[in-house]
């Protein structure tokens, strides 16, 4: 073997770091004010959901008997009673309930997006990479699942297996990955024609390794953007189900359920019951949209 001082493994360990596309994207993202603001708002909401239970003077199930019956006057938001956001119609502390609802809504959104990212990306990239009959069969499955009215299926699931958070997640998991699979497949088809993929095939790299090392990392930009935008749509979706009275079960709650309750009492002069959850809902959705938008700009390879 020839001596290669420069190329000694130890010398290479100190080689300077390169500027990866991810690092570039991160820099661009943090230059985008709206996106950073969205990130801050989201961090505050997450902190609210995580820390809320420790600071709330009331429990989310506890009924304040002193308030019951005269919620319009006694249940107002106030610092003295400890009901910072007021109470709901049953005299339960709205601050604690909003904390709890935020937890559920964020969880629904994030779980839905995660399922979409993992299942949808792998499913779509496998279909797109192998193409031909494999692709045809796999995408027909997606078409069929998409053509089923999912609301109907979800309602059926909830009726048959009873209302539970698990069923809600199952229902959301069943549909959330379908669009993602289509997106991943389309992008994979485009990537398959690229020469670096051809080089890997010619080298004899195993197809699954090509998918994981060459296809998926190049899909990730699009996937992340779409996933960020999928979170709010999952939250809206859950809210809608809760609005129909089929979502999470009392005493658990979610943004959608709280808004539903608040809206039902709107004419009784208890507007805080609607406004607090609605404020969180709107702020949360806007935060996700701004972040998604910022990510899209940051990851867009065009203006590099």
């Amino acid at each position: 073997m020839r001596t290669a001082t420069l190329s000694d493994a130890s010398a290479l360990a100190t080689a300077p770091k390169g500027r990866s596309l991810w690092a570039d994207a991160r820099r661009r993202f943090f230059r985008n004010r709206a996106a950073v603001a969205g990130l801050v708002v989201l961090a505050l909401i997450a902190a609210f959901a995580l820390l809320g239970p420790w600071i709330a003077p009331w429990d989310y199930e506890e009924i304040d008997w002193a308030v019951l019956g005269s919620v319009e006057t006694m249940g107002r938001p106030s610092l003295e009673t400890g009901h910072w956001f007021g109470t709901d119609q049953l005299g339960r502390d709205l601050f604690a309930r909003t904390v709890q609802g935020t937890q559920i809504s964020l969880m629904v959104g994030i779980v839905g997006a995660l399922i979409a990212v993992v299942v949808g990306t792998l499913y779509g990239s496998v279909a797109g990479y192998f193409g031909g009959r494999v692709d045809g069969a796999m995408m027909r499955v997606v078409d069929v699942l998409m053509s089923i009215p999912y609301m109907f299926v979800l309602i059926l699931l909830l009726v048959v297996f009873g209302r539970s958070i698990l069923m809600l997640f199952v229902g959301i998991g069943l549909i959330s990955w379908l669009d993602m699979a289509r997106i991943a497949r389309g992008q994979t088809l485009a990537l398959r024609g690229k020469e670096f993929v051809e080089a890997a095939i010619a080298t004899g790299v195993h197809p699954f390794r090509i998918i994981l090392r060459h296809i998926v990392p190049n899909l990730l930009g699009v996937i992340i953007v779409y996933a960020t935008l999928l979170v709010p749509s999952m939250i809206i979706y859950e809210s809608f189900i809760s609005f129909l009275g089929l979502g999470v079960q009392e005493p658990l709650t979610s943004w959608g359920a709280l808004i539903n309750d608040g809206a039902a009492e709107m004419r009784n002069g208890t507007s805080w019951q609607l406004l607090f959850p609605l404020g969180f809902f709107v702020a949360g959705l806007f935060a996700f949209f701004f972040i998604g938008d910022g990510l899209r700009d940051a990851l867009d390879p065009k203006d590099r």
Partner: protein
Amino acid sequence: MTAPLLSVEGLDVTFPVMPRGAWPWTKPAGLQAVSKADLVLQRGETLGLVGESGSGKSTLARAVIGTVPATGGRVMWKGRDVTALDPAGRRKLGREVQMVFQDPLAALNPRMNVGQIVAEPLATHTDLSAKERRTRVGEMMERVGLLPNLVNRYPHEFSGGQCQRIGIARALITKPELLICDEPVSALDVSVQAQVVNLLAGLQRDMGLSMLFIAHDLSVVRHISTRIAVMYLGRIVETAPAAALVADPRHPYTRALIASVPIPDPVRERARSRPVLEGELPSPLNPPSGCVFRTRCPIARPDCATARPPLVEEAPDHRVACPYHDRGGPV
């Protein structure tokens, strides 16, 4: 006699293409990118493959490395038909045959750094430790003229010429026997073209490589090749030792190609009369009958439309697919 390193025998590659606006159930038309191509490449030699853009050179190369399926004929590697191999057997060949691509940046995964890119064939075909791989990558990078401490950089941080060096390092790291270079310098600045060609020629000498070197004109190929094959619309029309092909071109298409290589001296360049190639390359979807070159051939005659002229050995190792080239005419 031992079998040649690579021998392409009657290779056909036909792509199914849907005519524009066709119904989904209509049968796709066949685009013949390569038609009954024969090529032989001996160990240690450099075979140049020339032909204008769209003549099927890349497709032929892809059929050899197995990224497009051959629809007919055989690709013999050391006497073994590789088109008949199962996918796992085919993947093993990646250690022995490697390719350098035309677009240097597109051939590198933008999400991987140079070290990962160059090491991939090693990770695929050997079980060297990560440390040994790094050492080998460093050596290979030096060998292609890149500073080894650039291993952690990403492709977009390099110039076209440097990207092509990375591609060459990746192709050579498993010490393959055959290197296919598909127009490796066409996308580069003229000033770096010579550097990269010299690098390839040097590596070939040092590593005892055999090479299939593809280009769309003769200017580069004539210097680096031992033998040259000329391709037109998916057919091999002439093959000969490099010197013989340049000094004594026989097929009218080869003559036109040679005439189109500019002479460095501007005075002589302007003074010479050259038979310019008129018209466009016909569509491979609907090739002319008989000799496919007849639509542009200056000496075409009615007979040319009837049968495809076979590739005939007219001089030792000099094969031509035109029975009429020495019958006079305005060449």
